[in-house]
Structure formats: C-alpha cells, structure tokens
C-alpha cells in the first residue's frame, strides 16, 4: 500500500485504437483463471500481472478494458489497481531496481547502496534515467533479509549487495548493446 498518489493525478492518457487487452490475453486469462474462482473479478490480479509482464506497466486504457472484460465498474478496477505497488501506472525503465530499505537491510548497509546508485545514475527513488534504462525504487522488506542488503532487478533478487559491485553490474546492464552495436531494445516493452 502506498500513499504516493502523484501518479494518479496525471491527466487522462491518450487512447489508442488497438486494445491493450488483446484477444490472446483475454482468451488466456479466461481459460486459465476464470475457472479457478467463483467470481470473474478475482481474476483481476492475475490479469494485471499478465499486463505488467506484457507492457511493463498498467496503461490507463487497460483499466477501462478490464472493467468491460470482467464485468465490473471502472471504479472497482481503479480502486484495486491503485492499491498495489507492483502495478505501476506509468512506464518505467528497462530495468527496475527495487532496493529494500527495511530494517534488516538498513542494519546491513542498504543506505550506502542506494546513495551510490543515486550518485552514479543521478536519479532519486521513483525516477528513471533519461535513456529509459534504469528506474530506481525504494521498497519495503523483500523477504530475503538473510541476504541483506538486497534488491530486485526486475524480477531477480540480488543479495549481499556491495555498493560498487552492484553499481558496476547495473552499468553493464544499462550499457548492453545488441550485435549491431545499437543499444539493446527494451525487452517486452512496447510503450516507453
């Protein structure tokens, strides 16, 4: 749960003709998840996880489409989706670095890790680098306190972080280029 509401105060996003809930996604969710629950609404979290994987964030338009798809009010979808931190409503960088700031990690030096990231990439928690490569977030306990200090890089946990090494790893990621020497295309993100 978060009290950071700025995201949600942005003006209404532009529409596009092509739906975000493609027929493929709808069929997949309907076949896999609808039978699991007595109510369609319960497929909301699985659906949003699917959208998060597909687009990297939850586009505003997808909220309307979801309401139609699940047969619930738009407000109900908005109410739910705005509650969960993993469902970001704005696009993020190719690599989302979620640094744990809770007690075990802070005791083991998470502040130094975060400071180093801020210093090197010039972004505060919640911000994305200008090249859309790296988004830095501060999050609460990741359930990996024995590996403190730790962070998620997208979905992968990195533990026992040492500021310089970790920053070097991130720099390598953000400098990754494809065979032709271009900066690697963002994976799985169509709208950044």
């Amino acid at each position, binding site marked *: 749960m978060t009290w950071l509401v700025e995201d949600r105060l942005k003006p209404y996003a532009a529409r596009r003709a092509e739906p975000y809930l493609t027929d493929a996604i709808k069929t997949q969710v309907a076949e896999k998840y609808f039978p*699991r629950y007595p109510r369609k609404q319960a497929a909301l*979290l699985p659906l949003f996880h699917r959208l998060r994987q597909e687009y990297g964030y939850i586009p505003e338009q997808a909220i309307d489409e979801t309401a139609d798809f699940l047969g619930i009010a738009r407000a109900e979808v908005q109410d739910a989706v705005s509650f969960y931190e*993993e469902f970001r409503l704005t696009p993020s960088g190719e690599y989302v670095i979620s640094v744990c700031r809770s007690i*075990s990690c802070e*005791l*083991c030096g998470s502040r130094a890790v975060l400071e180093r990231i801020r210093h090197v990439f010039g972004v505060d928690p919640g911000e994305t680098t200008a090249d859309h490569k790296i988004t830095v977030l501060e999050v609460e306990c990741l359930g990996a306190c024995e590996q403190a200090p730790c962070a998620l890089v997208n979905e992968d946990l990195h533990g026992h972080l040492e500021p310089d090494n970790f920053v070097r790893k991130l720099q390598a990621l953000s400098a990754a280029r494809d065979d032709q020497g271009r900066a690697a295309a963002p994976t799985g993100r169509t709208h950044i």
Partner: protein
Amino acid sequence: MALVAPILLKRIPAEPAQRRLYRWADYTATGGYEGLQKACAMPPGEVIKLVVDSGLRGRGGAGFPCGTKWTFLPKDIHPRYLAVNFDESEPGTFKDRYLVEHDPHALLEGIAIAAYANRITTSYIYIRGEYHRQAGILEEAVAEAYAYGIFGRKYPGTDIVHNCYVHRGAGAYICGEETGLLESLEGKRGWPRNKPPFPAVAGAFAKPTIINNVETLACLPHIVLHGSAWFKSMGTPSSAGPKLFGLSGHVNQPGVYEEALGVKMSTLIEKYAGGVKGGKYKAAIPGGVSMGVLGTDQYHAELDFDIGKKYNVLGLGTAGVIVMNDQTDLVLALRNIVRFFAHESCGQCTPCREGTAWMHKMLNRIVDGFGRPRDFDLLMEIALSMGAMPGTTICGLADGANWAVRTFLQKFPEEFKARLKCGQVRGVELTATA
C-alpha cells in the same frame, strides 16, 4: 526438549552448496506424501482431532491453535476454502520462502492433509508478488501434484473435487492480514474486514474459509506420521513442536534455523548464527518488527509463543529475529520501523493512518536534531492509543506499530531522552558499517 534432528528442514542442508530443489521424485523418495497417505486412511474427524491434540499453534504470527481454528468451520456448508498465507512481508521474516524454494511439496502435502480433514473445495496459495522465482517453483510443484493425483481428485465417498491454485499478490504488506488477504484474493484492494463475521463463517467469496500460514501447514505431514505425543515432546507445554527461526541483522551467519520452541535467543545467535557481528549484543526484535524489541538484559529470552507477558513484547510473531549490535542507533532503527508501518497502513482507520504517519514525522524531526523533551510522552501516548487491542482499529497492523514504539521507549528510555535535549547532532547512519 531441544531438537534432535531437523524436521521441517530435513531436506534442506545447512551447507548452502548442498541445498537444492526437491521435485516430486526427490520428495517421494525421501518419505514425501506418506503423511497424506496415512491421513487419507483415517476419517477426516480423526485428523482434526489429531491436530487439536498435537497443540500445533499457527506459525503466521498470532499463534492461534490450528486444530481449534478448523473446528470453527460450520458443518455441511460447501464450497469452502483454504487460503494459504504465503504473503510473508513482515520485515525480518523469510522462513516460508526458504522452505518453499527448496521443498515446495512439503507445503503441498500439508495443504492436501488440511483439505482432506476439512473437506476443502479449493485451496488458494496466496504468495506475495515479490516472490517471482518462488511462484514459478510452486506452480511447477502444483502441476506435478496434479499429475500425480494429489489435487483434482474427489474425496472418497463424496462429490467434492479438491483443487489447488497459486494466487499472486502484488506488493502490499497488509494482504498478509487474513481478511486483507481474502479481499485481495477476490480481486479488490487488500483492506482488512471488520470481524465478525470471522472467515471460518464467511471468508473468501462469503463462504467458510480457513487461513493458515505456510509453516503451520508444513508441520501437518509430520504430525500425522509421528503422532501428537511426538510433536508435543518438542518445545514447551504451551508451545509444542519445532519452529523455523529466521536470523538477520547483525549476525555473522544470517539464515533460517530450526529449533524446538522455547530455545534461548542467545543459543540461536551463538550456536547457529555465528554470533553478533560488529560489536556486542544490544537489542533484538523477536519475531518481525510488529513484536517490539527485546532489551539488552533479555539476551537469553526463551522464545516460545508466550514470550509476550514474560518479556514485555507483543509475542513471538513470525520468529524472524533481527539482531542489533551496540553500535546501532536505536532512534534510527525505530524510525525505520515506524516508516514501514506508515507506508504499509492501508488507511482505513484514522488512528492507524494518522498515528503512524505522525510518529514517523516526529521521529524524522528527532533524527534531524529538533526533538523536544515532551516528545517522549507524546510518542508513547500516540502509540498506546492505536491498535485492535486498545480497540481503535480494524486490524493488528496498528498494534504492531504500537508495540514497536512502546517497547523501544520503555526499554531504551535514556537513548531516546538523550536525543530529545536541545542542540542534538543529526543522526546519519543506522549503524557503523561492520
């Protein structure tokens, strides 16, 4: 009595290099699903009675007797659900993750036994969103269990088919609170519900529902196989059995260790976690930040479910022990904990929403060197007024904030009062880097 050999961790060696994932074949080759087999040869009522007799108490934080909870389910109302609480978001807690990422079938066997005993229609494993890899491991194990007929079968003599699904959360601590979990399962925001009605009567989708923690369920195969007397031979009279303890913070070998309930904290720290790192012991949180803090003189505290009254903490909680050495700035430590609650409060109840945010602001001000002598009493007053136990909030999150603040202030008053004098230096680092 201490533990002779690991029980819950029997498939997870202490040596990290030897740890691996136990799939179906490995699990069944090492005695897996024998407990379920034995349970299915008993009438369901006998299984429930066995669990009641074993004295198994919930491992999710509240320590409520597991068998007793099961008996609250009304008879003959179907469908009925089991919600497995794998939200595990309490800072300092990582035991369920550790168990499942190596031995997922241990949880599934427990689920199958609980489901058989209670004639559950559908079991939902609610796993926190950040456990991406673990969700994958669980999905695979569930698929294996379906393939081998553990799930998706009718209970003998009935038309009830038991299904089991993994349901992923998406980053909200409060979804670990049992009714917050149910709301989230239904596709809503995870706002805890007012009780009554209790989940056993009207839980998920308004049907009877049991909510159990991962570790609680993982105890079941062993209880069924070895009996209630065996289970009670470990631990203390009121806190039976083995328990997973997660040690983190200032220890040399942080990790998950298994011991009988009632083990001394000093034993856990010295024998298992390699001693305190970077200095001497100063304070520890016994079981996740909601439980409050143990003082410097409580190093030898015997950790069982009844530590609350004995040591002036809220309870054993999740048994995630966070150790702090004598270099630790406890004002900064408390600020971190209160920030957690302020951030995770779901905002329904005014004392919790406003109280946690207010205390966080005060602690920020104190850290910045602008504390006032009267802040000590003010912090205490705000803390004591919030929670389900003072009766001002819906759920226990506020009690966690209450106990964290009150015990830090009660057990380390000088450290706090010294910071409330005029002209204080600003605190920067929580601890001298070890």
